[in-house]
């Protein structure tokens, strides 16, 4: 299978139903994308598939052959991703940080689709769980990144 991840092609030989998350983490050593629940509940595993926020724990690898996959490892190569990261640092969003790769990916997808999101847009896009309760800082950072 050919996967395009962060602009680079990777040849992967694996069972086609393997979740993309575990291909990234175990086959390619890209551990920035996190495992939290494995059942599309938490969003820690969020990556971009053709720019759309996607939960990689329930995305089989064969379904993304031919797509452009972006992970947190390349986030600062993307101009919008870079703005998001800057806002995240400015607002000191992360606590334990474990959910934050997914949060940053979700925010980047939102701002790619909707550069000037309203409160509703933010609420419907930023649905990933954070056990550390960084939700208010996340919203503030998304608003700021949109202004930047």
């Amino acid at each position, binding site marked *: 299978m050919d996967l395009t991840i962060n602009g680079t092609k990777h040849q992967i030989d694996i069972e086609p139903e393997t979740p993309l998350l*575990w291909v990234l983490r175990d086959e390619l050593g890209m551990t920035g994308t996190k495992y939290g629940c*494995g059942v599309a509940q938490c969003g820690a595993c969020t990556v971009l598939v053709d720019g759309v926020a996607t939960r990689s724990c329930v995305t089989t690898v064969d379904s993304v052959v031919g797509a452009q996959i972006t992970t947190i490892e390349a986030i600062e190569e993307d101009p919008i991703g870079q703005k998001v990261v800057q806002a*995240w640092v400015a607002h000191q969003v992360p606590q334990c940080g474990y959910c934050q790769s997914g949060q*940053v990916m979700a925010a980047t997808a939102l701002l790619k689709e909707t550069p000037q999101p309203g409160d509703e847009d933010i609420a419907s896009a930023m649905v990933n769980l*954070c056990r550390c*309760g960084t939700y208010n800082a996340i*919203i503030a950072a998304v608003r700021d990144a949109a202004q930047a």
Partner: protein
Amino acid sequence: MNDMFIKSREIGKPFKLSRRGFIGASLGALALGVVVPAGRARAQAAQAVVPGTRVSAFIEIRPDSTVLFRSAFIEGGQGIFTAMAQIVGEELDVDPANFTVEGAPPGPDYLLIGGARFTGGSMSVRMSYDAMRKLGASARMMLMQAAATQLDVPVAELSTEPGRVLHAKSGRSIPYGELVDAAAGLPVPEEVALRDSADFRWIGKPVGRLDAHDKSTGKAQYSIDLKVDGMLYAAVQHSPHLGGEPDSLQNEAEVAGMPGVHSVHRLPGAVAVVANSWWRARMAVEALQVTWTEPAPDVSRAMPADFSTEAHLAALKAAPGDGIAFEEEGDVSAALAGAAKVVEASYDAPYLAHGQLEPPSALVRWNEDGTLELWAPNQAPEMFQAHAAKVADIEPGQVIVHSPLLGGFFGRHFLYETANPFPQAILLSKAVGRPIKLIWSREEEFLRDALRPMSAVRFRAGLDADGLPVALHAVSAGEGPAGRWFGRDPDKVDSTAVEGIAGKVYAIKNRRVGHIHVDDPAIIGFWRSVGHSMNDFFYETFFDEMADVGGHDPYELRHRLLADSPRHRNLLEAVAELAGGWKRGPFEAEDGSRRARGVAMASPFGSEVATIAEVSIQQGQIVVHDIWVAIDPGSIVNPAIIEAQVNSAVALGLSSALLEEVVYVDGVPQARNYDGYPILTPDQMPRVHVRIVESGAPMGGIGEPGVPGVPPAVANAVSTLTGRRVRSLPLSKFSLEEGGAT
């Protein structure tokens, strides 16, 4: 939890770290007995080391004058690495931004919590503040002494600016990085002067977190992310009932032939598959058809096959008597008998899961020199080291423990006999002769987490003719986690079972807080704010019941009963002011919604907290709009981190109040992932307003104190809206129809 360590020291018994022998282990029989805490054993063996004094154990100054600091405390989001850099950097004279901080290995230098070491009880900063300042100041002095020799000037003529020693007279300066070798050979000074707090540049300031960028870009590495050469992956399936053992594996050969599978294993209470990726290991282990034995009669802590939370709650509620007194003042019986009115109510709170977002894992490697290396999320490296040595059957000194960043902890990563994956990883690695990374799936985590205990409390209060409380009688039933893990004296009450019912600050003359120990069949553990997480809910909501029956406003009654306690009265006034003044409601908000406010106070972990919540009910859902928190930790290190920790504590406290409950039926937890155990979602998060009050009292904790006030403040507001008292959590069980009887 404040008292847990102190208590176990007072009793003078060894910490009981494990009570259950591994039975039927096919990877070598292991008997896990009583273990002396590594901390104490080492402290005795190494009398020469005074914890927190040997500069070289903590501080490594690199050639570029940046600092590598080994922290006695583990970073799990509470900001402790940054706080350490601020405290040490202030005295060492190095900008905290030039620090790299990592978790220290086990060792006598790091036993800063009364001769032991763990990250918990909101103790890290307050227990080490003085020692860490002195450490930084000592290192600075050593650098100045080295510079004095090099420049051939008296040390008194030298000063420092961040990262360098200055000789103002001659205008010469030397970067710290160039003085390291000379300074390292010098003795640590006996006495050093500390910086005047008026001159602090970093302590007390909102210094940015050292890890914010790495955590925003996926570069931060947690245990689950680590990899070593030659490593294989492992996944497990546990016995549904703790204590059951794998009997027959019907399809073992078939599973062994699945893609990538290296081997199939039986472990104590579990089966495991080792494979060349975790996903393959997991698919295979979950495909295994296992017959589990019922626990043998002598297996302690076995989960009864008929255990249910419903029945356990009924047993707690029915526990007879007044229990052993923990707190007793005046004559509560006489005061109750003479009271104008008596108020009675029973309360309860459920088991809770930690739900930290990083599933537990362990990476284990046996080295050629016979040492064992362990990377695992942990809050207590020495305890993990001692236990790992037992499991591996080697000396503690042969176990090298690494303590990576924690993807949340909230009390999850103490040593809990059956809730830690690392013993399994050690056995598997030994069996296959390769390094092993074992990850528990979220489902296995929900099956084996150590739970916040369930508890039930009966209150009786006596009011005088003016409706003021003159007697309070509380009986709590359950078990505290400190007693479970650090030894319980049957004649004494475990403070972690009653903290938050006892230790309240209101002037009620006659009081008795009793506790009935009821053995908890579940594996229980520490959960952020421990006993306070439910006990302040019980007490502070019952307080409103007393106020209502006595005809007093709940804020005014609190204020009145704090007349002789200026610190608490100020704090209560501070939170009201922050909220724009106290109003109970119900009132109509600007958006037309009908709202009410609840107030609560708590005294957890050496800090004082006052909380107000504003709540409405919309479309049958509780909506919490705002939470105001005034917190007095005495004095502070980083206001930005405190504000973040209060936000985090509010989220967890609210999550527990609204949603969380571990339910067991037939000995198994009903929820095995977040779909069955909902936690607070972004749309449920209120605005959080924080005021930090520095009263100058001894420094208190920060990580946990924000939690306990939230459930009662919210529940009190809900009661005002509905006209019915909330006496059981979570609120998702509470019928929200307004009005009606209590």
